[in-house]
């Protein structure tokens, strides 16, 4: 269940998997431009690598049609410095990111105008967890992994089940999920993720100083966090939403077969088709209202 204790590595060696939101629907309306954002993030990633010689950084880009790895500090290509000006790390990351953005856009299918697509956060979170499992398998000598989400897009409600699955898996493996929300509203998914897994959630008030927020809050390794005063979770709302109206409720009715939540008494469950009060006659097939990919 938990990772093997790393006896030979010092306590403060970290592996940070950064999930970068590249959703153009969000960036086109953000007060911070994407290039300014990248300059803050690249400086932050460089700083993490200098904090400890053994630290590792992996970057996964979260697009709106696909997700992909764009940088891995432990791969052989990223060791040396090219010239004194820009480390190889930055140029290779930027190049791969640009390739990713082009590919991501090409995958767009015909969509009705004006529909804002969410970023595929559940996909990149799942990929990050698979990578971290590989690090756990590599033996007793490994850095302490954590995930940092830099998200600004709105939550996609169709990803709820997938994101909760990923959060519980991260909780089982003791992998904290930190989140820095750079959008204008609020992300319930990010707050829940950080709360359940023991990570830190923060929404910076002034995005011009993003680098400072990243360095003071998210750069600390896991061992040192017990000595540092980090933002505490303020009132994470764990109330559920009813399936019929999507309103937040504090008392409701649960179907005993499929655990769907309703705000009023119904005769029949709209998700699994069970008739209440009678013995069911055949096995129900759950509908895919909540899942993004439909079951065939």
């Amino acid at each position, binding site marked *: 269940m938990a990772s093997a204790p790393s006896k030979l590595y010092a306590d403060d060696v970290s592996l940070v998997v950064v999930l970068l939101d590249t959703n153009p629907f969000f960036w086109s309306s953000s007060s911070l431009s994407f290039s300014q954002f990248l300059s803050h993030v690249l400086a932050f990633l460089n700083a993490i690598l200098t904090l400890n010689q053994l630290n590792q950084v992996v970057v996964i880009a979260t697009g709106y049609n696909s997700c992909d790895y764009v940088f891995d500090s432990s791969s052989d290509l990223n060791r040396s410095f090219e010239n004194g000006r820009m480390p190889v790390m930055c140029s290779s990351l930027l190049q791969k990111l640009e390739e990713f953005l082009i590919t991501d856009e090409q995958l767009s299918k015909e969509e009705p105008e004006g529909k804002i697509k969410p970023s595929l956060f559940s996909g990149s979170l799942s990929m990050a967890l*698979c990578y971290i499992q590989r690090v756990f398998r590599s033996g007793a000598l490994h850095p302490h992994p954590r995930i940092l989400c830099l998200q600004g897009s709105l939550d996609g409600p169709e990803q709820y089940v997938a994101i909760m699955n990923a959060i519980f898996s991260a909780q089982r493996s003791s992998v904290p999920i930190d989140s820095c929300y750079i959008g204008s509203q609020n992300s319930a998914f990010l707050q829940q993720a950080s709360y359940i897994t023991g990570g830190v959630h923060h929404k910076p008030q002034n995005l011009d100083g993003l680098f400072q927020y990243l360095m003071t809050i998210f750069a600390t390794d896991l061992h040192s966090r017990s000595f540092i005063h980090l933002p505490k979770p303020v009132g994470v709302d764990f109330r559920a939403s009813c399936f019929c109206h999507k309103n937040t409720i504090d008392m409701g009715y649960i179907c005993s077969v499929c655990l769907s939540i309703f705000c009023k008494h119904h005769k029949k469950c709209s998700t699994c088709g069970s008739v209440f009060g009678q013995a069911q006659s055949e096995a129900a097939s759950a509908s895919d209202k909540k899942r993004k990919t439909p079951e065939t």
Partner: protein
Amino acid sequence: EDDEDDVDLDAWERTYTDERSWESLQEDESGMLRPIDNQALYHSQYRRRLRTAARIQKGLIRYLYIVIDLSRAASEMDFRPSRIAVIAKHVETFIREFFYQNPLSQVGIVTIKDGVAHCLTDIGGSPESHINALMKKLECSGDSSLQNALDLVDGYLNQIPSYGHREVLILYSALSTCDPGDIMDTIQKCRKSKIRCSVIGLAAEMFICKHLCQETGGTYSVALDESHFKELILEHAPPPPAIAEFAVANLIKMGFPQRAAEGSISICSCHKEAKVGAGYTCPRCKARACELPTECCVCGLTLVSSPHLARSYHHLFPIAPFDEVTSSLNNPNCKLQRNCFGCQQSLLDPGNKPGPAVVCPKCKRYFCLDCDIYIHESLHNCPGCDSL
């Protein structure tokens, strides 16, 4: 002459004469022993497990009684340090895992000692109370009585709500049962009450246990050693297939309490003393509870939070098993997907030939065997399908 010798040999001796396990050891160039490749074996076991787990309805709200046999057979020392010590240790792990996977379910413990069955803990949802009660009472003596245990459990399980699935898990060490009446009648009574009885034996296979499990739709297995016992007991943690007629579908009223404000002072209903902040307020009667999930002590409303329900959603939306990639199909595609999509590990073996891999039937991405196991057993999301 080997055949005649085999008749006199025990099964464990035959593994040395017939199977010759030492011959599968290999040395590398410097003369050190190479570790035996367990990965392929582990993966084929996992795939066998997956084939049997088809997409069927599962009983998510479970009321489970664990029956522990504390007869003198449980103090036998063939499991180190004794059978009962091993049982107690793994029951603790099982209870924690059970409540993790089934937050809305409840557990009770029954013990059989001196031929009489006692209820050790009432059916309830707090893992600590069950574990603490169990660890205090582990003395073994007397005979074991299967019928008395089943009668007791049947009486208790008839009082639970109709939407719950009734289950019994019997951890049986004895090789006999001393019953006051006809156990076949009791088995039929359990069957009529729709109780699913499963048995894990620690001694040897018994006909009556097998008959009980067959009649009630449960599973019977006998543990070979401690690690096998742990595996068998943990198989009962995820919800079993639900027999549709067994539980009536019903709407259960539940509350979703908010966390009390920091610094607020109220009297906690479970500890009966004043506490500051960090608790949950029942939405119906405003009493304070310390942890979730629980039943409000004042008004009886079940209090849960949405992650508790979300923990069971992966049973409702399972992901398709991945298909194995055979090397003949590999050739046209192996240039495209050289790395596992999930963890970026190379799918080529040291000779640059395609190694073992699996492919998702929906998104057609390739994954390594370890990611396959992790995705299906723990994560329950396909990264490829979620990135489309």
